[in-house]
């Protein structure tokens, strides 16, 4: 679930006209790859690559469930993938065409198997956590040296939020991650699907809602980087990108990312092939290309997200493999949780609660 530049489907290109056998159409998250890789793929395989981007799982899922998307490779996140597999949206991978699958990392594939049993339909592209991006200077100035910058209490305790409000606090506009986060803070099981437990997340937000500046899933990168806001609840790689932008700008803003100790969500973006893909052959070629250790390392070195490819780890720069915010150490890994997809009824409860949290209605 990487950064989203435009709110509306950025480049939902019209997939009109017949696809040909030497074309591969890939639909991935925006700003989620080193574009040099795209040229390398065309060069190596002789296939023409048509690369479109989206910015929310909901947009992708609606396209998948409508059918006839015309794409050969798409990249849903874990819970969304699982639901779309159940709906019959994807085809099983032909492992004989994917020799590079041996490069994959069991630590990740054992976790992605809970969404895609046996990893029969998908390969991992990137994974990350959802946590706290903090402007260290400003937050310690307002809350003192022992400010809880690695705890959900930073953003869910009204006493802290009251002091941070003027400086600016933003949350992701992603209920399937923000509700579990509030439950983790309240000491509940973040993956609880009982509507009565989910309602407790509403109480958590109720106490701090007046202090939350905005719910948005991409604006926080820029806002954190130029010191406009103090705290953002966001995706790990995005916050690290904000940290780097602040470095480059040399504006004195120091950004840190932490996966909160009460528990942070771990998510996986998986590449899969739609059941009606015009060129499944080419799709397999693309997946195999991505699972090449050098290619995968280049992608991670560029976007600051961890990948599920163990062979690529020797090729990662120290900035990426050595950063516990990207590749968490064993202790942090303990604190990460995963979630299961909500069924339609519970999803409605969650969406409704989220609307109420945001709009007060």
């Amino acid at each position, binding site marked *: 679930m990487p950064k989203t530049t435009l*709110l*509306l489907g950025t480049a939902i290109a019209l997939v009109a006209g017949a696809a040909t056998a030497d074309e591969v159409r890939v639909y991935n998250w925006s700003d989620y790859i080193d574009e040099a890789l795209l040229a390398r793929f065309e060069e190596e395989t002789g296939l023409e690559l048509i690369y479109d981007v989206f910015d*929310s799982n*909901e*947009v992708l*899922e*609606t396209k*998948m*469930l*409508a*059918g006839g998307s015309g794409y050969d490779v798409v990249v849903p996140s874990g819970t969304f993938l699982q*639901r779309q597999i*159940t*709906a*019959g*949206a994807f085809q099983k991978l032909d492992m004989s065409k994917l020799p590079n699958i041996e490069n994959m990392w069991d630590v990740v594939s054992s976790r992605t198997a809970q969404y895609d049993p046996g990893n029969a339909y998908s390969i991992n592209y990137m994974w990350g956590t959802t946590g706290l991006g903090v402007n260290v200077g400003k937050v310690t100035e307002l809350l003192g040296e022992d400010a809880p910058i690695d705890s959900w209490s930073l953003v869910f305790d009204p006493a802290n939020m009251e002091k941070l409000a003027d400086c600016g606090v933003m949350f992701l*506009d992603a*209920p399937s991650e923000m509700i579990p986060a509030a439950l983790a803070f309240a000491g509940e099981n973040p993956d609880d699907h009982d509507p009565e437990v989910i309602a407790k997340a509403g109480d958590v937000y109720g106490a701090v809602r007046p202090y939350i500046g*905005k*719910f948005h899933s991409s604006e926080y990168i820029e806002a954190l980087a130029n010191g*406009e806001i103090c705290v953002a609840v966001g995706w790990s790689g995005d916050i690290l990108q904000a940290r780097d932008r602040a470095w480059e700008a040399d504006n004195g803003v120091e950004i840190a990312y932490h996966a909160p100790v009460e528990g942070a969500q771990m998510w996986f973006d998986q590449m899969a092939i739609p*059941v009606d893909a015009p060129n499944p052959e080419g799709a397999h070629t693309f997946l195999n290309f991505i699972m090449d250790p050098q290619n995968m390392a280049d992608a991670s070195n560029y976007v600051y997200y961890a990948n599920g490819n163990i062979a690529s780890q020797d090729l990662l720069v120290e900035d990426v493999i050595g950063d516990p915010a990207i590749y968490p150490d064993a202790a942090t890994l303990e604190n990460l949780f995963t979630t299961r997809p909500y069924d*339609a009824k519970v*999803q*409605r409860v969650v*969406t*409704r609660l*989220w*609307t109420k949290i*945001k*709009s*007060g*209605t």
Partner: protein
Amino acid sequence: MKRFALIALPYGWLVALFLVPFLIVLKISLSDTALAIPPYVPTLDLAEGWAGVRAFFAELDFENFAFLTTDDLYWKAYLSSLKIAVASTLMALIVGYPIAYGMSRAADAWRPTLLMLVILPFWTSFLIRVYAWKAILAQEGFLNQLLMGLGVISEPLTILNTNTAVYIGIVYTYLPFMVLPLFAALDRLDESLLEAAEDLGCTRMKAFWLITLPLSKQGIIAGSFLVFIPVMGEFVIPTLLGGSDTLMIGKVLWEEFFSNRDWPVASAVAIILLAILIIPIVLFIKNEEKEWEGET
């Protein structure tokens, strides 16, 4: 025969682009959500013949419409959209009338240029123009910089992500739809009527209220409907310029469709929106007809 062909063309257009999509949406609104492609049941199975059609109709029901009455979110969103649509139509009228009036009174040589200026924004993508407003209204945006530079304000104003920004965006975007019909109406106005009024001792102000305004009524009505109807279902402007608490039916529709994956309820919301709009649309068409009759 010729007459028939003439009528068939617009009616064919209406059936293909309005009636057929409407029936599809209506059908979905009566079905149930499901985890499948497409994400609702029942789907019509024509291969089964009559049995398939009968089975299909047997499964349809109105529970999605009943569901909309169980949550006040929907009514609040419809009402809020209605309020925003009415208010921005009035604002567009207040801003647009003087513009159209000025254009219609301008020298003949200037009129094509002025008309061009009103249409000019359409040369740029609507989406880009709304994004431009984000840059203007932001906390560090052009507007705040200008006002602070002039010393009018000392603290930047928070306009972006509020309903104020939504009104600004809507009035800006839909202003040409108000100005053009008003201009058409004012342009046709017979100026000798105003001269006659003046000769008979009427002040210019009074002449405006007694003659110009009533004679531009058709333009006011046409412009108001052209603004009101699309604003009611507006989605892009509140999403880009509004805040988390801006409630409009277009956003609710998006959430039903994308977040809840509930196409049947989303379709029911859309059908009700259409039902609400049918009244002003019918009034609009009646008005247009009257105008045509008046001219012939």
